């Protein structure tokens, strides 16, 4: 989505943490302006609605490696570093940050942390919160603070990195991070299964719990999403059906053994067909899954987080509404892309209402992930107040008392 800003937006491109901090202190002291930190601008229109005016803080030049003690498998970098840059640097040493990031050639680490971006692999590797071991950031008043450190185990002081992960740039501008890395596996492979009925797909997903294999990711898509993913990855997914795709990583013999085994295990759920997809093709398909969650051609992308056991109920309801659905199925994270027929705000609101009926408000959360810029201000980011909402508001108030950081967005979008 390209940002369209009707307000007046200046740009500031800091060359160092100190410069950024000084800029923010000055801003806070004299007639403060709204500040919007941006990384790769892959999601700008969502977090920085059209009518805003203020200053964009562009993090692109804060992209250096501060320290990379390779054998410790940790790295400290500036937050404006792009994910593909990071991948290249650590990959040369046989290491990786096991987080899937869409548009990694643009998205920055700061953006990934601010949005808590994750993809299929979260099932086995967790999310970026599990890898940030130290963080530096600058609050709305220009105070540069840090927490954690550069060692993998450390409990000195409060873990402020958790507070900043997923904070959407509303509490502070993240300037530097230390990350824990993992070894790069030898290879990967995928097995896809096509299912006719929701029920059989659900039974198969349930069987993950007792499978003799250890998948690294379990992706689901309904037929509408399958068509698009198949086209994107140039693969032969039988796209008239629902697909469950199970991924494995590790040494080749172990990966192959698991792929064969899951096909055996899942025979009892009567898949219409199944296929093992190896290395290169699997990577292409995998990337298509990663990118699809943020595919931006649709008017609205929703994200629902539900219990895995409740997921199929939600998927069925969404499919009936002609929504293309993809899910990190074993985690219950569902992305829904609304059809073009949802052409007005009222249509969208109607669909949201229908979907809300299919989830239980205690254990499920529906959020607007991306939408047309002109609707951004009318659609709630969170569809209901999350647990701890009043503490969240106090936290925002304490760290950004003048409400300078992406503030309207955070405050307005909640319909408590």
């Amino acid at each position, binding site marked *: 989505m390209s940002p369209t800003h009707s307000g007046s937006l200046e740009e500031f491109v800091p060359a160092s943490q100190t410069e950024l901090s000084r800029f923010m202190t000055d801003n806070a002291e004299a007639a403060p302006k709204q500040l919007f930190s941006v990384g790769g601008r892959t999601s700008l229109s969502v977090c920085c609605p059209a009518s805003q005016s203020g200053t964009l803080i562009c993090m692109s030049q804060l992209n250096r490696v501060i320290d990379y003690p390779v054998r410790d498998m940790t790295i400290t970098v500036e937050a404006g570093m792009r994910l593909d840059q990071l991948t290249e640097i650590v990959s040369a040493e046989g290491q990786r940050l096991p987080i899937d990031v869409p548009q990694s050639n643009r998205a920055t680490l700061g953006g990934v942390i601010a949005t808590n971006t994750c993809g299929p692999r979260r099932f086995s590797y967790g999310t970026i919160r599990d890898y940030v071991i130290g963080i530096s950031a600058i609050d709305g008043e220009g105070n540069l603070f840090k927490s954690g450190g550069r060692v993998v185990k450390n*409990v000195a002081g409060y873990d402020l990195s958790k507070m900043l992960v997923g904070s959407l740039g509303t509490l502070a501008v993240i300037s530097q991070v230390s990350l824990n890395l993992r*070894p790069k596996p030898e290879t990967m492979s995928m097995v896809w299964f096509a299912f006719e009925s929701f029920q059989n797909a659900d039974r198969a997903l349930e069987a993950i719990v007792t499978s003799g*294999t250890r998948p690294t990711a379990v992706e689901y898509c309904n037929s509408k999403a399958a068509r698009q993913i198949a086209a994107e990855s140039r693969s032969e997914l039988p796209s008239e059906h629902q697909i469950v795709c199970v991924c494995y990583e590790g040494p080749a013999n172990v990966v192959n053994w698991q792929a064969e085994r899951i096909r055996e295990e899942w025979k009892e759920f009567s898949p219409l067909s199944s296929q093992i997809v190896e290395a290169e093709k699997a990577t292409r398909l995998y990337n298509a899954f990663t990118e699809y969650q943020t595919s931006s051609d649709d008017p609205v992308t929703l994200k629902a987080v539900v219990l895995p056991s409740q997921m199929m109920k939600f998927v069925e309801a969404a499919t009936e509404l002609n929504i293309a659905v993809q899910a990190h199925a074993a985690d219950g994270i569902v992305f829904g892309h609304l059809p073009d027929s949802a052409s007005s705000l009222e249509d969208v609101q109607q669909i949201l209402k229908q979907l809300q009926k299919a989830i239980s408000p205690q254990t499920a959360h529906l959020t607007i992930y991306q939408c047309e810029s002109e609707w951004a201000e009318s659609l709630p980011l969170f569809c209901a107040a999350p647990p701890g909402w009043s503490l969240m508001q106090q936290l925002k108030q*304490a760290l950004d008392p003048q409400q300078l950081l992406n503030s309207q967005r955070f405050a307005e979008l909640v319909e408590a």
Partner: protein
Amino acid sequence: MVDSSNQTITQEAPPLDELKTGSPPFTSLVQQLTQIVGQANILYNADELLVYECDGYIVDKSAPDIVIFPISTEQISAIVKLCNQFNVPFLARGAGTSLSGGCLPIGGGVMIVLTKMKQILEINLRDRYAIVEPGMVNLHLTNALKGTGYHYAPDPSSQGSCTIGGNIATNSGGPHTLKYGVTTNHVLGLEAVLPDGSIIELGGPTAETPGYDLHGLYVGNEGTFGICTKAIVRITRDPESHRTMLAVFQTIADATRAISAIIAAGIIPSALEMMDHGIIQAVEEAFHFGFPLDAGAVLLIEVDGLEIALDEEVRQILEICESCNVREIQRADTPEERQLIWKSRKQAFGAIGRLSPSYCTQDGVVPRTRLPEILEFIEATSKKYNMRIVNVFHAGDGNVHPILLFDERDQEQIQKVLEASEEILEKCLELGGSVTGEHGIGVEKINFMSRIFNETDLDTMETVRNIFNPRQICSRDKVLPQHQADEKAGVVQSHPARRAPH
């Protein structure tokens, strides 16, 4: 009185001192607390309180005025509201195994002990979580999961007694954290009574919840953000199989090279524990495992995962150990042999008792590759102070636990232990590490905070604490140095006595 918005407090309450020694307000507080929990669940006689004057950190002591054992969140909320009303500080206590004085009731007050809240409320295998009360003993959760193919991964060495609430408060680690992560990686959500008595929920059983990650922020708060009354934790698939080995090295340098090389080869063992020369001697004397007495270091290496993957991993590990001059490798081929190997690690502390009347376990961290330097430094420190120091620790994480041996009856030795500990922790910082990997700051290491963090860092941490605990009434004078009012705190490190092992 306190209103639930946690802001307005009318200070009609008398100062704390007047509450003590049977004063009318004290009696009134006791009466009202008794109404909440019943006679059987409250202690306030001086001799009964003695048990609670310290935790696993026995250097400093300070008895609470009242100890109370609630059985529900509502009771805790009511207790906390009363404490606010009477202007009395309070704090939570789990099993009391903290090694940093987290349970020290500075300035007295009410200690809320959670050991009667130990139920499992729900186990959900399909959705991979369990909901437990905070006083549940860590190991009991894993025991309850036996046979399901799942377990609770965080496993501090104290897991047979410490509670999940205590683990959450301290963000505990353990031998298996190298592969499986520390407590924070396994907490999905929680319920807590805030220091004003209000009850909140953070996070939840789903993979994520929108908004700020407040449960993530809560983990590791060392009891200063209120009382955790319920925990939603992730449960983990059991590995299909494991392989356990003991590798004997001539020198510490060889052993630490092997550690880095194993991980650099892309293998993340499920445990990688080191015992040095000193501890080998002690263990061998006590249990006769057959370790060569002249060995410089022994590594306990365990890998787990799918059966089909393990032999190759073991082969690579053996090759790496060979290239690092390993002297000998013992492999456990049966469950009994595996148990025996683990026994040598787990009983290491028992063996220390034979070496010295008292000992003090430190908890520093360095980047893994700096292990040789810190171990050399520890050895030099041992010589400098003419004091025996032995090492048994989580090598894969760079988390060292030098154990300083001394005699607590000798004042001079006590002073030396303090100075030596300080120097070792300083060195950890100098090498890019931290002064605590898992035991926490508590009161023990509060003086280090301003050496690790600058004023802005600490101010921000304080700002965050103030959101949860604006009056500092909950677990006073812990973690952040700004609030350590010395005479009130009474926290003067007098002597580091024998501390619980780890």
